[in-house]
């Protein structure tokens, strides 16, 4: 049965009525409410304000005021105890508004979730989280940026938030975990679903070292129409949202819209105006999102002190310094050899040394400077040139 959204009303109340979800009867009713799939968060939110409590809302749904036939059947059949058993089996827990793990900023959303399911570590109120989101089909550069930003966030003590999807989402989680940090993945499917299957290992690692969050109870399959709703939870859990890559009309874009609802900053990593993957970040920057060129910009804008970076081009042997200086853009080893005057074997050797130092990346036969998360104007070549023997080509 289709559910009609009420017209947008500027005076819609925010949060929940006082006393909502408090007490064991309310808590039970809330749990059942959260398991209804045929009713949108907004309809539910309006219903709750109309009825005043979870118990009353549940009764209204049972009476046919909202929700689908399935929902009505569920309301009569399901018992809170049964749902709790189910949660226990999935090793998941439930947090309602006012609970410790229910992040208060979620209430600033126009249609806040009436509760969330969680797995893994406890969501601590002390942690500051930054969302890193973007395309499911990023470019190689986008992957690198997402990973570097996540590593930088982790190093600065921030927790990374993202979806559970392929592409930028997965790479951001990986970056954070690789740097020894923690991460929160918000799923668009049931809390127990390992979707997409490609990310199964990653999701398990997040359960061990971070937190999975979902609005949906165990068993709910992944369906594309639930993903936008997930994006609002990502925004609601974070103090800033970074958009790495995305096409114009994408879920990435919607996350940014939700960010403005919650009142947090949106950051965009700019890209070439010719690339489809730059559309979302570039458009957001034009609309007022903050442009960031790397982790230093992000931390600066968030008012967080940047830790000292580890990789340093200083003290490189001459061959390697020359090769690094030559790499203005992705280059063939041949071109590097010509620019430096080194032989082919020596060039390859220098590039591999640089690669092992993490200063250079080789892929598909070309080499380029590694993106280490710092803005590009902190030119490693000029730094090396200053400390070295000054063999930069003149002019």
């Amino acid at each position, binding site marked *: 049965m289709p559910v009609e959204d009420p017209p947008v009303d500027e005076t819609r109340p925010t949060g929940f009525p006082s006393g909502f979800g408090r007490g064991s009867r309310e808590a039970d009713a809330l749990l059942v409410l959260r398991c209804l799939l045929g009713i949108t968060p907004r309809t539910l939110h309006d219903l709750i304000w109309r009825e005043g409590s979870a118990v009353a809302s549940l009764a209204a749904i049972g009476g046919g005021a909202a929700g689908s036939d399935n929902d009505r059947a569920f309301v009569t059949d399901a018992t809170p105890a049964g749902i709790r058993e189910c949660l226990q089996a999935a090793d998941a827990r439930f947090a309602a508004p006012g609970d410790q793990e229910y992040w208060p900023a979620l209430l600033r959303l126009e249609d806040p979730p009436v509760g969330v399911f969680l797995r893994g570590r406890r969501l601590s109120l002390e942690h500051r989280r930054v969302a890193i989101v973007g395309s499911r089909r990023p470019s190689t550069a986008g992957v690198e940026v997402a990973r570097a930003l996540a590593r930088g966030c982790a190093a600065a003590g921030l927790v990374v938030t993202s979806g559970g999807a392929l*592409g930028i989402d997965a790479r951001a989680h990986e970056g954070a975990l690789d740097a020894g940090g923690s991460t929160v993945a918000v799923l668009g499917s049931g809390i127990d679903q390992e979707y997409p299957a490609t990310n199964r290992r990653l999701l398990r690692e997040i359960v061990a070292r971070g937190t999975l969050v979902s609005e949906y109870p165990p068993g709910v399959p992944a369906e594309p129409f639930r993903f936008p709703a997930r994006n609002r939870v990502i925004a609601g859990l974070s103090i800033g949202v970074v958009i790495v890559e995305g096409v114009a009309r994408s879920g990435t874009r919607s996350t940014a819209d939700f960010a403005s609802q919650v009142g947090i900053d949106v950051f965009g990593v700019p890209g070439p105006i010719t690339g489809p993957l730059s559309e979302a970040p570039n458009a957001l920057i034009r609309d007022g999102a903050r442009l960031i060129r790397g982790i230093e910009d992000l931390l600066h804008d968030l008012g967080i002190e940047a830790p000292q970076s580890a990789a340093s081009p200083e003290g490189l042997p001459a061959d390697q310094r020359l090769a690094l200086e030559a790499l203005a853009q992705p280059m063939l080893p*041949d071109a590097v050899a010509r620019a430096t005057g080194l032989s082919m074997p020596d060039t390859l050797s*220098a590039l591999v040394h640089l690669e092992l130092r*993490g200063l250079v990346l080789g892929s598909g*036969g070309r080499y380029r400077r590694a993106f280490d998360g710092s803005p590009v104007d902190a030119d490693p070549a000029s730094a090396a040139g200053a400390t070295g023997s000054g063999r930069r080509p003149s002019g």
Partner: protein
Amino acid sequence: MRRVTERGVVGTYGHAMYGRVLGMAVLGVGGYPVTVEAFVGRGLPALTVTGLPGAAVQDARERIRPAVEHAGLEWPLRRVVVNLAPANLRKEGAGLDLPIATSVLAATKQVPEEPLRGVVLVGELSLRGEVLSTPGVLSVAIAAVQAGHTTVVVPEANAVEAAQVDGIRVVAVASLEQLVGFLRGRWSPPEIDADPGGGWSPPEADLADVRGQEQARRALEVAAAGGHNLLLVGSPGAGKTMLARRLASILPELTRAEALEASQLHSVAGLLAGRGVLRQRPFRAPHHTISTAGLLGGGSTQLRPGEASLAHRGVLFLDELTEFRRDAIEALRQPLEDGRVVVTRAGGSVTFPARFTLVAAANPCPCGFRDDPVRSCDCRDDHLARYRAKLSGPLLDRIDLRLGVPRLTKHELLGAAEGERSEVVRARVLAARDRQLHRYAHTGWTSNAHVPGALARREASLTTAGERFLGEAVERSALSGRGFDRVLKVARTIADLDGAERADVEHVAEALSYREALEPEGRSARAS
């Protein structure tokens, strides 16, 4: 020879008659002697062949009579039994047509017996009595020498290949009539020029034709020097095929023995007709739809060498490696390890030599444009992961050199320097190969790529600094044990090219550059 009576035609052979000649059958790559006996006796006109004839030999029954009659000879209108000994081996191929026909002619005294002594016959007959080109003549000639025979009669089309074998007289005949003339002493066969091209061979594709691609050219040199297999990963149009074709041009020239070995395989496959012997290292590039039998050899009746064996002493190029059937790829492990293919059938097993350098090529991702400077790649993570998983596995473990071959931009092409000619590179390759022969003289191995891991570790004789550097690389990039050995062997080859006694840091470093990451875009990709 015959007289007409009131009772009809009566031949001069009123009683039972017997004739015997030597033939050869080809099994796998070798020829083995077959004694062909003919018995002409009482009974309705018929030709029976006994002694495990294969399908092609059974067919000979129908072919031989018209051939004999067309040559102006008489076919006995009596019962003819031809026996092929030894009877326990199945005889395949049409090369037995000529000996069968001759045995009948000998039995009916139409040709003298004496000149047939020590003569091995091979050749297929047409209905008009022409002797047609036959596969495996080179193998037959070699086996004939080994069996101590003095003369081999071969089809004219195969004359040059038979003439490559020393120690035996080759008689090339174009028709059954010529053979009969030869045996009756009325026709003498022409001299055979064993080297019709006069040593001239068509110009090979030269390495200098490749513009840019310095790293790939260098990788070819390393592959040629150490006998390493090579994987080229790059977008369509990057020039992977062009590069692969030029590997043969920097390998050492075929020695006489190698040329004969390789030519024998081509002869058995029927690919040598008209040419004497291979002068250039073979380059085989089978299409990716090839079956396992096509790649490794086999076939239900006549066992034929597969592409892996046709590439023996040369280059086997597998373009679009991921598109090949998985079982075909898996089956390549045996020749890559042992340098031979063993094909086993109910009738027994056959060994084909197959020592080749493998060059495989693959796109970097399903769409082919990952890391391309112009076109963007729109492959999803999971598709890419699945694709790269296909590239991994046991075959990849046996490929020491892996590198990305980028599609060059117009700018890069224009800026590319003129490359070295193949002969210049080949000189370095030869020197490096000599060093290896010398080093492994007492071990029975000849090249860095093939020595076992333990020996490689001992003989690499890394410098202290080289060892420390390799250790560091292992820590940082999670090289596996196998990967470690691969880098070590390649470093050893690079040091050999450099004329260095011990492998130093720069050799190890260059070796590390030939390890294009193939892991799915994920955590373990390359050094962090």
